[in-house]
Structures are given as structure tokens and as C-alpha cells.
């Protein structure tokens, strides 16, 4: 029996697992969290049941039925707390155990087919003061609300770009916070133009539009002031957030002088888009396209034979697209084809929601002049505390043109997060110093051969106990 190994148990991974089982394959589903669901269906732990938890979620019944179906299936092995730390050819090296533990169980998987469904996380642009406690990523604030019932503050500003800011604001209001404002960087005209020029496309993605425009339930909608063409351009506070500066910005996201307004808050949630989690597919050798997503064909195949990709790593498109892509990837990985009859509805949904994804990008894409709100003192790399001024002065003094060398010259992106937060911003800011506007060495901050930290003892121990080593699942 063929084994399909799936990395990531969010919407795409769960859909892939279900479809692969349907297709007759055995499934191993890995996720680094303690339970399945991914960031989208991040939920309360089993020790904290709540009768109306569905109030915090969209598509909760879809999740419940996917989970029940897979958990009750003995040919679907769900491995949570599974931290994939390296991929070496077809060997997938995993540590199973509590996050950042010291003595986790080392496993090596080698499956005939692999589905990458590693998802995405918030892209947060550097802003003066964004390193203060009380500044959260939008997704982080939502994860705290959904998974912990923690509210990030009493008076909160949400800033950035994209339809995802609204459900974040909603989850804050439901947790009892006052949302002082949601500041969407895109201008109203651009939003209206993008969202309504082809109403027939919108009609087909009705559920998505509901989520985007009508997401916020009626009883809280009036409590979420939504303002377009504005951005959080500075954050102030002594040792935690005390206020934010909101500015009007032009279409390139450059702040407009004289429009600054200071608002007293105790928390800020930022999300300027999403960064796909590419290190594992890159480690597996999958080709990345010009838009910096994993290249896939109609069958969700990557450039590497036997390796498939689904969900946000192929393009930011939301839960419906992830479910459709996941189903197709799982089905094909199990031996089917995307053109098979039972994949029809998934193909249709995939096409529709890809159009929707393109609309999001065109309406909410990051403006090229966002860096105009930076000052010399603004921290760009949070781990290594590298400022904008430092990046610029080193780039000028060295005239270096490669990311590899510039990272080592400035230390930007060398910290423990390995450039996950600042990587793309650093590439962009340093690239501005190079003729042609981009660094020349082709080095990507998305590449991380060690995908998550591993204790030296765990690395060493595997050698001492070779019997421990090959818990291999082969076709």
C-alpha cells in the first residue's frame, strides 16, 4: 500500500489527508502543533472545552468532520508535536516531542509521495517602535484569542493590509477589547475597483466575500471603525506600547506629511500580508516561482517527482483554495489525477479562488514606498537588533551586492528566527542600494536547511543509537 506523507495539518493538509485516504493510500500526517487544525483552525486545548467554541471560527463544522474522519481511521497516522528539522533528498528528519524539548524522539520518514502543506504566517513590515511589548502580529493576536482566550489589550489598533484584518478585529471585539481602528493601507478606490469590477466572479465566491465584506457579525460591526488609506507609521512607549501614530499614505504607501495622528492604545496588531513557509519545500528541492511561491502544475505536483504542494505555499488564497488544492494534491499523491471525475468540484473551486487570490494581491499588495516611514533608528532585524541606519551605512561602505555577504556584514537575518520575520524586508532594503534594485547572488532568505532548532545532544544522540534512526515508512 502506498504511503502519502503530509507535512502540515491545517486546511490544506487535512484535505490532502482525507483525499489520499479516499484514494486508497495510507497516510502519515505530521504537524508541529499539539493538535491538528493549523493556524486557521487554532482552537482551545482539550483541557478547556467550551460549548460555543464555534463562535470563534469559520468553517468549524468542516474542520470537525475532517478531524473526526481522520482520527477514527487507523490507516491515517496523525503525528502531532512533529518537528521536521531537515530534509535530505527523500529523507524527512523529524523530532517528535514537546516544542524546543531536549530529548525528543528522532524519526526519519521516507515516503513514496509527500504533500507539503506548511502554510504561511504574517508578513509584518518594520515600523519605528514595532519591537515594543504590546505589538503583536495580527495572526498572533488571533491565535491568542482562539487558542488561549487571551486578549492582547483593552484599547487596540489593527493595522496593515488585506481582508484578514477584519476577522482579527472581530476576534478582539469578541474577547472584549475595544478596537480603536482598523487601518487598511489600501485606498478605498482601489479596493472598490478591485472588488467590484467583475461582480460575476464575486458572486461565485460568495462565501469568501461574506467573509471579507460581511465577515463581521452585525452585532459587532459597528464597533470596528474601518479606515482605508491609513497606516500605523510609528509606535511609542517606554517599555510597552502606549500610543501609535497613524498617517495617511499615498498609493505607494509613503506617509503624507502633516496627516499624523497619535492614538493612545495598549496594543497594536500588524499584518501587511503573508509570507509562505518555504524552507521545507525548498529543502526538498522544490522550485520557487518568480512570485516566491512553490511552483505547482494542475496536479499540484512540484518540480520534484513525488512531492506535491497545497495551500498558502503555492499562493495566498485563503481556506477555500487551501481545501481545494489539498484535496487535489492528496488525491493525486495517492495515485489519481486532477482530471478525475471526483475532483471536478475541487478543480472548479480552485479556479475560482485563485482568481479571488489574485484580487487580494492586486488590492492589498505592499506599496513600494513603505520604507519611507522608517527612521535610521528603526529596528529591522529584531533578533540581532540591526537598525535601518546600520543596514544603509554598511551597504554603502561595503558596496557589497550579495545577500550572503551583507547578512554577515550587518548580522541582519542571522538571529534565531533565521530571517523569518525580517528576511524579505532586509532583501528589499539592501537591494535598493544595488544597481538594478536587487541583490545579485540569488541567495534567498527563505532557504533554511536546518528548518527548526535542534539541540546538539539530539543531533549527536542519533549517531550513538543508529537503531533509533530509521523508523522509516516506505511505500
Amino acid at each position, binding site marked *: 500500500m502506498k504511503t502519502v506523507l503530509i507535512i502540515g495539518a491545517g486546511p490544506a493538509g487535512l484535505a490532502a489527508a482525507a483525499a489520499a485516504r479516499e484514494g486508497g493510500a495510507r497516510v502519515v500526517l505530521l504537524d508541529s502543533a499539539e493538535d491538528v487544525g493549523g493556524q486557521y483552525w487554532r482552537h482551545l486545548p482539550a483541557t478547556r472545552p467550551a460549548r460555543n467554541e464555534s463562535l470563534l471560527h469559520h468553517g468549524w463544522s468542516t474542520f470537525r468532520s475532517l478531524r473526526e474522519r481522520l482520527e477514527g481511521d487507523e490507516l491515517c497516522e496523525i503525528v502531532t508535536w512533529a518537528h521536521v528539522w531537515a530534509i535530505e533528498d527523500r529523507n524527512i528528519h523529524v523530532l517528535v516531542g514537546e516544542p524546543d524539548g531536549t530529548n525528543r524522539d528522532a524519526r526519519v520518514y521516507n515516503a513514496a509521495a509527500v504533500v507539503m502543506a506548511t502554510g504561511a504566517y504574517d508578513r509584518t513590515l518594520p515600523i519605528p517602535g514595532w519591537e515594543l511589548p504590546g505589538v503583536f502580529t495580527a495572526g498572533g493576536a488571533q491565535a491568542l484569542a482562539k487558542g488561549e482566550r487571551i486578549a492582547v489589550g483593552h484599547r487596540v489598533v489593527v493595522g496593515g493590509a488585506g481582508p484578514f484584518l477584519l476577522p482579527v478585529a472581530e476576534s478582539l471585539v469578541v474577547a472584549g477589547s475595544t478596537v480603536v481602528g482598523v487601518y487598511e493601507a489600501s485606498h478605498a478606490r482601489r479596493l472598490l475597483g478591485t472588488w467590484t469590477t467583475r461582480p460575476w466572479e464575486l458572486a461565485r465566491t460568495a462565501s469568501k466575500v461574506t467573509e471579507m465584506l460581511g465577515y463581521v457579525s452585525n452585532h459587532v460591526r459597528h464597533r470596528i471603525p474601518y479606515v482605508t488609506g491609513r497606516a500605523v507609521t510609528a509606535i511609542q512607549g517606554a517599555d510597552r506600547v502606549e500610543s501609535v501614530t497613524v498617517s495617511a499614505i499615498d498609493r505607494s504607501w509613503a506617509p503624507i506629511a502633516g496627516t499624523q495622528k497619535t492614538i493612545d492604545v495598549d496594543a497594536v496588531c500588524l499584518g501587511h500580508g503573508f509570507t509562505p513557509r518555504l524552507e521545507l519545500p525548498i529543502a526538498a528541492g522544490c522550485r520557487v516561482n518568480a512570485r516566491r511561491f512553490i511552483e505547482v502544475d494542475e496536479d499540484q505536483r512540484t518540480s520534484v517527482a513525488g512531492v506535491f504542494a497545497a495551500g498558502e505555499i503555492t499562493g495566498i488564497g485563503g481556506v477555500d483554495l487551501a481545501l481545494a488544492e489539498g484535496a487535489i494534491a492528496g488525491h493525486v499523491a495517492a495515485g489519481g489525477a486532477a482530471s478525475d471525475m471526483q475532483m471536478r468540484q475541487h478543480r472548479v473551486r480552485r479556479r475560482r479562488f485563485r482568481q479571488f487570490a489574485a484580487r487580494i494581491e492586486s488590492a492589498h499588495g505592499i506599496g513600494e514606498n513603505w520604507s519611507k516611514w522608517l527612521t535610521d533608528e528603526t529596528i529591522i532585524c529584531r533578533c540581532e537588533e540591526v537598525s535601518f541606519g546600520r543596514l544603509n551605512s*554598511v551597504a554603502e561602505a*561595503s558596496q557589497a551586492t550579495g545577500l550572503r*555577504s551583507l547578512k*554577515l*556584514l550587518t548580522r541582519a537575518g542571522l538571529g534565531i528566527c*533565521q530571517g523569518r520575520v525580517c528576511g524579505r524586508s532586509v532583501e528589499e532594503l539592501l537591494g535598493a542600494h544595488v544597481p538594478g534594485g536587487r541583490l545579485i547572488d540569488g541567495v534567498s532568505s527563505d532557504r533554511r536547511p536546518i528548518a527548526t532548532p535542534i*539541540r*546538539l*545532544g539530539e*543531533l549527536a544522540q542519533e549517531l550513538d543509537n543508529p537503531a533509533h534512526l530509521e523508523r522509516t515508512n516506505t511505500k
Partner: protein
Amino acid sequence: MKGSVIIVGAGIIGAACARTLSRRGLDVTIVDAGASAGATSSSGEGNLLVSDKGPGAELELAQHSLRLWRTLAPTLESEIGRDFPSVEFERKGGIVAALDAQQSQALDLFADAQRRAGVDAQRLSADEARYLEPELSPAISSGVYYPEDAQVQPTIAAEAFLASARAAGTRVLVNTVVTGPLIDADGKLAGVVTSSGNLAADDVVVAAGPWAGEVAQVLGGTLSVGPRKGFLLVTSRMPRRIFHKVYDADYVGAVGSDNHDLQTSTVIESTASGTVLIGSSRQNVGFDSGLDVAALRKIAAKAVRLMPFLLETSVIRAYCGFRPFARDHVPVIGPDPAVPGLWYAAGHEGAGIGLAPATAEMLASLMLGESPAVAAAPFAPGRAPLADSLARTT
């Protein structure tokens, strides 16, 4: 003007040569297929070592180069300005630890010979070694302290040489691939043909690290230098617990080895930013840069044997790089024996950062017809061991 020279390769060797030749009055252009300091120079520890070298020509070159390094850090700063990041030069010293009586004996013999060659090599009892480096395993049997061993941040050092060269007039052409020799009417080498056009010069220096052999061939020369793959682990930042470069006694044997299989020897040290670097492996597998978990495991296992506290430290990154190695493990510095105007500064294996200043000085002396400070004959491209090995491999 004393003439013009093209240097192929903007790593630390090419950059150091460009700096010296520019400052000696030559018209220098440095070309690189990629970006500066983008390969071997940004993949290693930044070792300036005498501890790993037995008596001989390379040790003499290393001793001379270390003397040059001691004055270089302040000199470079005056050449490129204080805004430039520090090269982080530190004479931290090295400690080699033996793990059993047999290793102790071999290490003592090696250190005796080094002492006769002028190396400061001080024998340490196990207790003395653990006094200097408290995290060393209680299982060590003895050690040797090498106070001369030093360290720089290699990428910054390479870029600093390049910035100094640029300040002295060197032109830097990145993203420029050398595709062939430029031949004049007399059939002589007169420059290089590149992906960005022809570049004329009186002399051409190949300083292309592990690719030096390939570039030599493209230019009509003969040089047996190829890649020797290595991995290096980087930990998360931590309060400082390691004060010297710390090696196990396997290190010495590995550098000169001709074994093509995976070998590791331990080198552990703290960096200015608080991380710990843990090396390293050696493999002859061509330019395959793929992750090799077996190599990482072997490095880790030997490191925790030497310093057990490392068991719980987090590895956050692995560097993979290619050491440029000559068949006889001795750098190649000087003219091609058959092609007038073609020069080499290559084959430094794992020692290029330390040897860069002396290499640049030696090359400049040879090109300008002066007598080098260190005898150049053992490094000559036409030397017998290289010619023999070439005959064997072809």
C-alpha cells in the same frame, strides 16, 4: 603605472591581492562570477591558526601572515573608515585537547616539533586545560595551549580587503564570468574574455577558491585545485562559556589527509555575537552542496564529547562550504609554469583567511620581481608534488 592586472575571484584571497597590488601602484580589476565574499570566504570560522600546522613551508607562511594580521586590523580601519564593521580580530588563543593517553602522546610529539619551528605551544595537564577552558570534558587527558591562534570574522575581513582595494583604485566587477583568455597578436595571454566583454591586462591572477582549477583551465593553464566540502554548525546566542578556540586532537591529522570519505575534527568557539561555531567536516564530493545529516551528526557527537554542556544548546544554522584544496594540501602561489602572464593564488584549503595577507604580499613580490619575505619555491605552481598528482589524476 607599473602595469595592469586582472584578478579572478573576489573572495578573501582575491580581495587581499587586489588591495596589495593596488597599493603597490598596479592598475587592478577584480572580477567575480557572483557577488563578493559569497562562497568559501563566508562559509568558515575565520581561523588564523598555527596550531594545526606541522613544521614546514605552510607553517612559515602562517607565522608570517599572523604577524601581518596583528597590524592589519587598525590599518584596514584607517583605509576604509570606522563606519565599516569591525573585522573582529582577536588573539584568543587555541587549546587542543587530547582524549586519551595515545592522543596525548601524539599531540605532545606534534607540539614538540612545532616548538622547534618557533611556535608557542605550551603543554597543559588536564587540570590546567580545564582551568583555562572550564567546560572541557573531565575525560580529557592533556592539552596544548597555542596563544598565537587568532580569529577574524571572515566575511567582514574579505569585504574589508575589498573596500580597501577599491579605495586604492581597484575596479570591482561582480556577476562577471570569465569565459576564456584574451590572446594578443603574438599569441600571448593579454587579459580575459568575460560575460560582460573583453578585459585587457598585462597579467591575470586566478584567485577563484575551489573553482581556481576550472578557471585556470578556461585560461589555458594547469592547476590542480578542487573543492573539499565542509559543514559548520551555529548555535543560538548564549552567555559566554568558551574562551579560546578549542579543538580535539583529531584536527591535525585531518587537514593533510587524502581520505575522500567523511571525516570530522572538532573546533568549537564563541563569536562576538554570542553564538558558538562548531566545526567541521571534510568530504571530497565535488560541488554537491546538499545537506548531509550524517556529517552534522558526526560533528555534533564529537563536539559534545569534548564539551558536554553543548548537549542542550540549540543549533540554529548550518553552513556548507567548499575548501579549495590542492593535491598536496599546500597553497599555490606564483606563475603558471607554461603560460606567461598567468598567476595563481589558490589552494589554501581551510587556511585562506589566515594566509590571505602573506599570500597577497608574496604574490606582489613575485609579480614585481622582488624577493618574498617567505621562500616562495614550496608554493610554486610547477612544484613536483603537484605535477606528480596531476599526472596521476589525468
